[in-house]
């Protein structure tokens, strides 16, 4: 067996990320799948157990996706340890989770290339470098967090001048964030704010309590992620944009929500007038995947794609995951465009809850909407 680190598949994926050719995606995806099947024992075992026959897998939709839960229980990197690999842990905040998932990224340069290229398209299409405020710990403060790593890379690539991180494991220092933003306002320089939606919510509360509203420079922008997770008073997309306008003077088109997870090396971002010409209201935005990632909405029973326009569980094939497993089944619902690049996120699958003879018929019937069989 060729050593993983020398395998040409890595170079091919990196090359694709740098210069995507959509027509070559499926062939490369199938090569990546076969490479992963050969090198990852747990994935091979999974495919064996579900009766997936490699010889019959000729289209991307045939590639068996693994649940994000797999990262909790099995090693999903290749057979060879790669020096310089990075280990990321899931947050462990998912309801019902009992262990943290581990994603060992054996080739961080591919992860970085993916993250930076899509950030450039979605958050920095104007090619600006800006002062950056990190409201989530950066990589040196939380090395096991994939979000931290991404923020650090973002600062390296797109930051300029004073860039500040106001968060650590204990929380976010909203006062320090406000000081940074006030300084930027005084100098009329644009800023980029990176953080979780919860950290932004905390900042807005902090500013409201002090009756402070800023007018940041025109091209200031925000990337938030995580949605309602961890928020005492959850902010929806409309509220994030409204608060960004009210407290920071940032245009809603420059408030861009990220969808990402530790188990995926690529991310999706809101399509807005700033980065794509889309101008849907915040609560109705679609997210754009990079060209090296393809999404599908699938039927949880058959694991096959649902009919066009129907809601299904989101499955991704991410070439940037070449060092682990690329076909990932998430626990999120969504609607996906035929090309697999435009995704409307529709929430998350729940877990069983204690109940008895409980549902009213209205709920019962509502639950039947969007039947999958």
């Amino acid at each position, binding site marked *: 067996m060729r050593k993983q680190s020398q395998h040409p598949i890595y170079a091919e994926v990196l090359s694709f990320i740098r210069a995507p050719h959509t027509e070559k995606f499926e062939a490369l995806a199938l090569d990546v799948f076969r490479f992963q099947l050969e090198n990852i024992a*747990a994935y091979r075992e*999974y495919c064996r157990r579900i009766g997936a026959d490699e010889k019959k897998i000729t289209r991307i939709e045939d590639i068996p996706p693994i649940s994000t*839960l797999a990262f909790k229980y099995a090693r999903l990197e290749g057979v060879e340890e790669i020096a310089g690999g990075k280990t990321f842990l899931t947050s462990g905040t998912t309801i019902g989770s009992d262990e943290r998932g581990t994603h060992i990224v054996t080739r961080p340069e591919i992860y970085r290339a993916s993250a930076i290229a899509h950030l450039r398209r979605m958050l920095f299409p104007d090619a600006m470098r800006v002062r950056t405020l990190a409201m989530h710990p950066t990589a040196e403060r939380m090395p096991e967090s994939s979000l931290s790593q991404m923020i650090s890379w973002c600062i390296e690539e797109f930051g300029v001048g004073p860039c500040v991180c106001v968060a650590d494991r204990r929380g976010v220092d909203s006062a320090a964030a406000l000081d940074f933003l006030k300084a930027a306002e005084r100098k009329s320089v644009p800023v980029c704010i990176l953080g979780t939606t919860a950290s932004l919510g905390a900042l807005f509360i902090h500013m409201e309590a002090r009756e402070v509203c800023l007018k940041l420079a025109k091209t200031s922008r925000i990337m938030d992620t995580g949605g309602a997770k961890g928020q005492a008073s959850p902010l929806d997309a409309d509220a994030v944009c409204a608060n960004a306008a009210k407290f920071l003077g940032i245009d809603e088109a420059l408030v861009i929500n990220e969808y990402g997870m530790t188990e995926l090396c690529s991310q999706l971002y809101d399509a807005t007038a700033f980065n794509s010409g889309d101008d849907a209201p915040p609560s109705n935005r679609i997210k754009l995947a990079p060209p090296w990632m393809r999404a599908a909405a699938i039927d949880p029973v058959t694991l096959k794609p649902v009919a066009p326009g129907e809601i299904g569980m989101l499955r991704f094939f991410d070439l940037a995951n070449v060092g682990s497993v690329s076909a990932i089944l998430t626990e999120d619902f969504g609607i996906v465009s035929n090309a697999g690049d435009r995704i409307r996120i529709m929430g998350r*699958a729940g877990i*069983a809850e204690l109940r008895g003879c409980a549902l*009213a018929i*209205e709920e019962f019937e509502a*639950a039947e909407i*969007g039947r999958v069989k």
Partner: protein
Amino acid sequence: MSEAAQLTGAVEAAQLRETIARLRQSLVSFPGAMRVADSLGSAFARWRERTLPERRAALARIAASSGWSLGLLDESIDALLAPFTRDALESFASKITTRHRLGGFIMPANVAGAGMHELVVALISGVSAIVKTSNRARGIFHEFAHTLREIDLRVGGMLEVVTFSRERRDLSDLMQRECDFIVALGEDASLASLGGPARIFGFGSRVSGALISLTAPSNLTSLAAAIALDVTLFEQQGCLSPHHIFVEDTGGGSAREFALVLAGALDSLAAVLTTTKLSLHTAASIRRIRERARWREIGGRGVELHEDAAMVWTVVFDPSARFMLSPGHRCVTVTPIRDPADFELKLAPVKGRLEAFALAAARHSRAIYLDVLAGAGVTYVCDPGSMQSPPLMWPHGGGAFLDFVSTHS
């Protein structure tokens, strides 16, 4: 609110007031507990006939709204009705002191006929009852009331069934104001929102399980078939449906073997009692359970997943799980226990939230396990295969309501 909607609301409120007044009037001419029991016995005897037009009509409506198969509904309703024998009804009637009160019953719709026990003991006890069901499925109670009126107009006059949605708080409030007590089956949060002067008996979120403790279980197949039936009836949606099966196993692998046999039993039953279409959320929940089990198995955690391709049933053998909740739809966990102390630990997550347990235990250990179950708040212990048929005198939810209506002479 539109003018039309306001008008409709006023009419419905007026109708509800009239219905309540009529029921109040019926209290003064209570025909006696034994006659009520006799009439109910006749009504249930008719309802045990699967061809009864009222039963067919009710089940057809439920099938249309829920997607459940008629075969599954018939089996489920048979199990529900089994305890309502003439003997049981008359025995109860002979022992109680009647009290004439007006009771409001707010019934759920996910489990057809749930609340029947409370309604029946109340009627025999001298209660006139107004039953509220949900908007879109008139369900069993409307049709049952019709049968009762056909058999005995006076007894039938003690029961009225109304339908309105939970959004009509005005109508709910009216019921709560006018009734002497309210029986409500629903989620804990919904029950917590009930108020008003009437005494409220809430039957909230509860789950059930099963325990097999046999020194050398030679009848695993029949036990599995019985438990598979308990799991399958009502599509595992009610408080009496088992979520987790525990098997006393000191290392011989009988729990693991039982999971496999149970899987076979569920598969066999699925061919007879066909299932419904799953909602996206339910299917996703089951997918999550399956994938978690599959990957724990691959990861060497000793878990075994048994499943069918169509997601009709799922059995997870988990060697170390504490009580796991199921999304329903024939999805269960099987776990070995070492002894009663271990069992008690594994019940801890749902202590006080348990309703029923099927128990197959050797004589020497049965009493000990019954103590554990009582300590965990279980109100109904039965043989496997009987979980959906608790007796008339089942102390549902702890027995407060039964005590309230059945003051014995």
